[in-house]
């Protein structure tokens, strides 16, 4: 298995290189960042100074070459507009995004799997039909609209929860997070639910489908014939089998909610990375865009690796091939 992991990681280095090339030249093609940064009343001399100060006067291939050389030393460049190393800027935003993402994934597992299992177990009951109908809404309503409606109802009309922003931070086991204060949790509730809504629906549907598929199978009948309790059949044997697609999807969803929670973060003014990347694209802040996407690619590579390893744990038939075949 270790050979498998090493092989995977070395392949990912190539992916990262290609990615950096695409993004670097892609951002260059969008436009000239100087027009975005510069004060409107700057004269021509000031524009030239700024272009030179940011190294944008050099040919693009040379800029890329410098970038690569620095990147090998772990330096992905400085944000043009913040003058902070791009990595630091992203890491500064990472905790906010992580707590939002993990809450969203937690909600989608905590609600999605039990509801999905129930809906699959008793597909004809009224409750199951209600669950499925609601999940369609969760799927199809646009995130930004739901987010605004949630703010309108819970923050503006009812006044129960704050409308936006991240709450106070608490410290627990040396980790600073808004998960550890009431104020922080209150701030987290709406954005996490907003972000989770789609995923809850997705997990419900996957779990239900798995349930429906597995319940009539021979191994279930066999287990019952063997005299196992219904509880053990459903929660041990069936559950294991339906978990494989669910784990895959949840793994990818973790990546999705970390990397692209842009809409939710924007509506709730949540100071996470999704907000950062959108601002950076609007500013053509190339070092941040490149660094961000490289980190995201890396994250997806790691998540996929973890998912592959989890497969083999969940399903002994899956073997991670050391030969790469």
């Amino acid at each position: 298995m270790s050979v498998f992991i090493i092989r995977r990681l070395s392949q990912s280095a190539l992916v990262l290189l290609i990615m950096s090339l695409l993004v670097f030249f892609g951002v260059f093609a969008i436009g000239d960042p100087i027009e975005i940064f510069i004060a409107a009343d700057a004269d021509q001399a000031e524009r030239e100074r700024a272009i030179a100060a940011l190294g944008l006067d050099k040919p693009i291939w040379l800029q890329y070459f410098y970038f690569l050389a620095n990147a090998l030393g772990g330096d992905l460049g400085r944000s043009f507009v913040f003058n902070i190393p791009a990595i630091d800027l992203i890491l500064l935003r990472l905790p906010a995004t992580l707590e939002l993402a993990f809450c969203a994934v937690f909600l989608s597992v905590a609600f999605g799997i039990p509801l999905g299992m129930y809906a699959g177990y008793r597909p004809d009951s009224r409750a199951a039909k209600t669950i499925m109908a609601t999940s369609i809404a969760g799927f199809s309503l646009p995130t930004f609209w739901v987010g605004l409606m949630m703010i309108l109802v819970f923050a503006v009309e009812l006044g129960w929860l704050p409308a936006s922003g991240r709450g106070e931070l608490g410290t627990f086991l040396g980790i600073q997070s808004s998960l550890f204060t009431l104020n922080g949790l209150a701030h987290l509730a709406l954005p996490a639910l907003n972000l989770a809504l789609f995923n809850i629906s997705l997990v419900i549907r996957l779990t239900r489908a798995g349930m429906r598929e597995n319940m009539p199978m021979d191994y279930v009948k066999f287990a019952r014939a063997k005299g196992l309790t219904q509880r053990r059949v459903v929660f041990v044997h069936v559950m294991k089998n339906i978990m494989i697609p669910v784990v895959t999807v949840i793994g990818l969803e973790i990546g999705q909610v970390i990397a692209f929670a842009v809409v939710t973060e924007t509506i709730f003014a949540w100071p996470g990375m999704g907000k950062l990347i959108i601002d950076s694209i609007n500013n053509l802040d190339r070092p941040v865009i490149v660094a961000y996407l490289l980190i995201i690619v890396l994250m997806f590579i790691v998540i996929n690796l973890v998912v592959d390893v989890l497969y083999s744990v969940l399903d002994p038939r899956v073997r991670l091939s050391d030969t790469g075949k």
Partner: protein
Amino acid sequence: MRFVLCRPMISIAVAAVAAVAAAFLPASARAQDLVVGLGGNVTSIDPHFHNLSPNNGVAAHVFDRLVHQDAQQRLVPGLATEWTVLDDTTWEFKLRQNVRFHDGTPFDAEDVVASLKRVAWVPNSPSSFLISTRAIAETIVVDSHTIRFRTARPAPLLPVDMSSVNIVSKRHVESPTGDFNQGRAAVGTGPFRFVDFAPGERVVLARNDNYWGPKPHWARVTLRIIANPSARTAALLAGDVQLIDQVQTADLPRLRGNQQIAIARVTSNRLIFLALDQNRDQSPFITDKQGALLPNNPLKNRRVRQALSRAINRAGIVQRVFDGEAIPAGGLLPEGFFGVSDKLKPDAFDPEAARRLLAEAGYPNGFAMTIHGPNDRYPDDEKVLQAIGPMFARVGIDTRVVTQPWATYASVSSAPTYAYSIMLFGWGAATGEVSSPLRSLLATPNRDLGTGASNRGRYSNPQVDELLARAMATVADPARARLLAEASEAAMADQGLIPLYYQINLWGMRKGLSYEPRADETTLAQFVRPAN
């Protein structure tokens, strides 16, 4: 079995409800706390790093300038109590006595020298304040509280320039930007002390009880960055923040109808206009009605430019797009600013006259064109362009409207590409003078003079250039104001660009607060007070 499956669900639901209910406890804000929702993104606390209006707004809480601008951008004393012209190329500034920095060190002329030096030094600046210090050839410290600036040429705008250069402590002349962001070097003389900065999230400030000017009402101010306008409005309605800036038009009826909300409004220093390509003989987006490039660029003809201006129903745009919250424009700056000509009125909406002018110019059947603009830069910019398209069509010019994100639009429409023919842009006069739009938008582009840097249509009129050059060499205010008025009249008579409207800056706040609205769009907590 059913219960077995349901039990975890129920317990989870109960736990969730309990957790949320516990969190409902309202955070009781202290009476002297103010939370503001800002639309602009603050990128740094270093007042010399990035000449960007949200940054300048935050800096104005922590730092002072020699000269301040009041809400209407008139100059008022800041760290300098008075300034005089000794001769055409020498300005003398008398500095305020008994002012101390937040760290207790006294302020004197050496701090001014250090700040000017730092402006030129600050590394990696994407947009520096050199444009405000360039006029100074030599700085002479006469005594600890008198400083003189020698300029190479007469520099009537030097006091205005000094109103944008923040004064930092001489101890931090070589502190990098990071030291300011972390607070070590964010030591000014301003009404608030710096407490904390989380990029993209918030800036926290505390009152400077030793401030030399009127003390702010608020012991603690949090400036929260909420870029999305709907989220900003929601935060105000929910009471998360007590004041927001850049209220969007769509939210106005809602806010106006709310008893808990008050609105502050003032005419902005920002003009929205159409720039016209008057340089090329063939302009890339001006064609005949079959789509073939016209052999001659009609925008070079004054009559065509005037026809376009008369084809626009400015009052209609103001009413329909902005719900009345804009002012039809006929000049470069609204009335009341320095150098504004009172003769410039908005062109009347007159499609017949526009047709006649087009016919006289040799285009009785019109032509076809594409007009370009941003869709994320100015309030309702895209809607405005969509409204203008049919107005041009009505006088016989087939018009297509294309809008783009600012990131693409701003660079492609500028030097050296100049990709478009007719472009929607805005111009805020940071100096509060007509010289600002005249120099940047209408003067002939000239690198050595630093003129016409944003003149995307490359309009060029020797008469305007000459009047402007004379104005910029005239130190006496009344004479300069007259020359600037004449220059803008000349440019408008020639329709160098098509002014559309002046924006109105809007702030929303909880009842019980008052804010003196500022023409320059900035939000300054020291001017937020409890309403009487």
